[in-house]
């Protein structure tokens, strides 16, 4: 294991300890954001994270139309993600899992408009 790997392992132990304290004191506050650990697969991501690291690079950012704040139906969103459309690639269950997609579609459907976003 590399130096960093070791440092990381230590950090994990420390984080776990911190989490225990945090859980007992303030039910979870202070826990680290769930990023990816060395040697582990990417954990299930929140809808916000999937959006900001995939959809948000195009939608509301010069390439695709704004999709938040329009109350788009959940099924419609899921359909576009799996099929792609024109310049939009299709995203497979291996990259956006069914669980992630369900939560993402619901989140987008209900999300308010973000003033920082603009159309194509």
């Amino acid at each position, binding site marked *: 294991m590399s130096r960093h790997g070791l440092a990381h392992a230590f950090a994990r132990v420390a984080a776990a300890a911190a989490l225990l304290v945090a859980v007992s004191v303030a039910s979870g506050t202070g826990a680290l954001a769930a990023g990816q650990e*060395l040697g582990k697969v*990417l954990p299930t991501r929140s809808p916000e994270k999937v959006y900001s690291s995939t959809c948000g690079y*195009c939608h509301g950012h010069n390439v695709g139309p704004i999709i938040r704040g329009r109350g788009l139906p959940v*099924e419609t969103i899921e359909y576009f993600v799996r099929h792609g459309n024109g310049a939009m690639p299709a995203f497979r269950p*291996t990259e956006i899992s069914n669980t992630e997609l369900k939560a993402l579609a619901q989140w987008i459907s209900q999300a308010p408009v973000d003033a920082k976003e603009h159309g194509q």
Partner: protein
Amino acid sequence: MSGISRRDILAAGAVGSSLVAARAFATPLDGTRMLPKRMSRSTFATAVKELQAIVGSDWVFADEESTVSYRKSFIPDLRGEHVPSGAVAPESVEEVQAILKVANKYRLPLWPISTGHNMGYGMATPASSGQMILDLKRMNRILDFDAELGTILVEPGVTYQQIHDYIAEHKLPYWIDVPTVGPIVSMVGNTLERGVGYTPYGDHFFMQCGMEVVLADGSVLKTGMGSVQNSTTWQAFKWGYGPYLDGIFTQSNFGVVTKLGMWLMPQPPVYKPFVVRYPNAEDVAKATDTIRPFRMNNLIPNGVLIMGALYQLAMFKRRTDIFNGTGAIPEELIKAEARRNGLGMWNTYFALYGTDATIAATEPILRAAFEASGGEVLTEAEMTGNPWFEHHKTLMRGGMTLEEIGLVRWWGSNGGAVAFAPVAPAKGAETAGQSALAREIMNKHGFDYAPAYAVGGRELHHIIFLMFDKGDDDSSARAETCINEMIVRFGEKGWCAYRSSVSTMDLVARQYGETNRTVNARIKHALDPNHILAPGKQGIA
């Protein structure tokens, strides 16, 4: 093609799913999932069952609806020549080995992908129909990050976004180098295609160090220092001992790469991006001749892009924003539109990395040379807020963006783009010649020439995105003819592609000569006698 328009879906509203179910197979192609050549339905079904036993039934996709996301691509495919039979997605090396055993048993051809976003080259689709996609995206572990050496060891499914996030979260003093589409693509997939980026580490295969490959017979090869017992050097020394093997597993079908090592660039204290604007189409020769010596002596250290005006405009605009007539857009219109947007006909993006003192020492030398060649040298002082400058500023520091994909919708909402990427020596006469030939051929077929030159050291990749309308069969047919004509006529002048779409692999492979093909065929036969791995990849059966 889904055979169902965006408007239909949006109009369907909450009942969208029933509409989708009823109409998803509306085109003839969608209705005929392609089986592997010479394989009966029952054999295919048996193989699928065995694959399900290995990876679980959730991770085998072998019906119309579940394979839809593997069929999507931006390139023309009028005759359904790149339709996969399905997909299987392992999560470990052991599962890959077990899948290969099944594939050998039934002669099931497998097309490996890492993230399968090979955009403009066929996305995840195979060189011939019926192959099953071996989707390695679930294998997305970052296995090692050595913070002293700045090296990383990753699995195929790791995206540049994941590495970007890992570095940010752990505050590591390194940069990654990305293709212009970093967030959704793979460091392994891109490097195996010998892709390029725009920091000083832009030649990805050059910066690769050590790989693990599962061969068709299930044996696991670690290249370089990787097979030495107790090795601590796998990601530090590329060449190992004896013949250097890594190269034969890039742009190839000789094995399934399951791990890859890369070097990362130490984050510099100061980063300064530049653009050099040239006003005329002919100026590409001057730009090339000015850059070359600085790339050779490394005063300009990064992968430089010489961006044509139309490539730049196409990112953020649609064709109808500029032109409503028929045929290619007249040059004067492009020039005027470029000027309105703070762009030249050619826009050269480079950057300096170092300290204030080293940059202050280098900058005047470069400025003087570019200005003498007729270029206007601009920096953040003048260009902040210009969307194109901001885009390249992001790229030349390995940042995350997908903005360039905008060019795929140039002709409208159906999208359509296929890449032709010939290489040339970095000499003015060569770029001028290539640009003239490409423009002539593309305009003849009714397409706009939207060029970019990515300058390596002594060579450049001429990246030509042929933008067409995939929703229009006539446009698709012309795109196909046009790409083929470009490949052939460039080839006559000794200019060949460094990489190609799945639809033109054989055509390009022929240009590299019979002996070359025979040697590849002999290696293939030795390593994969049943030809189960990606038949047709780079013209290797």
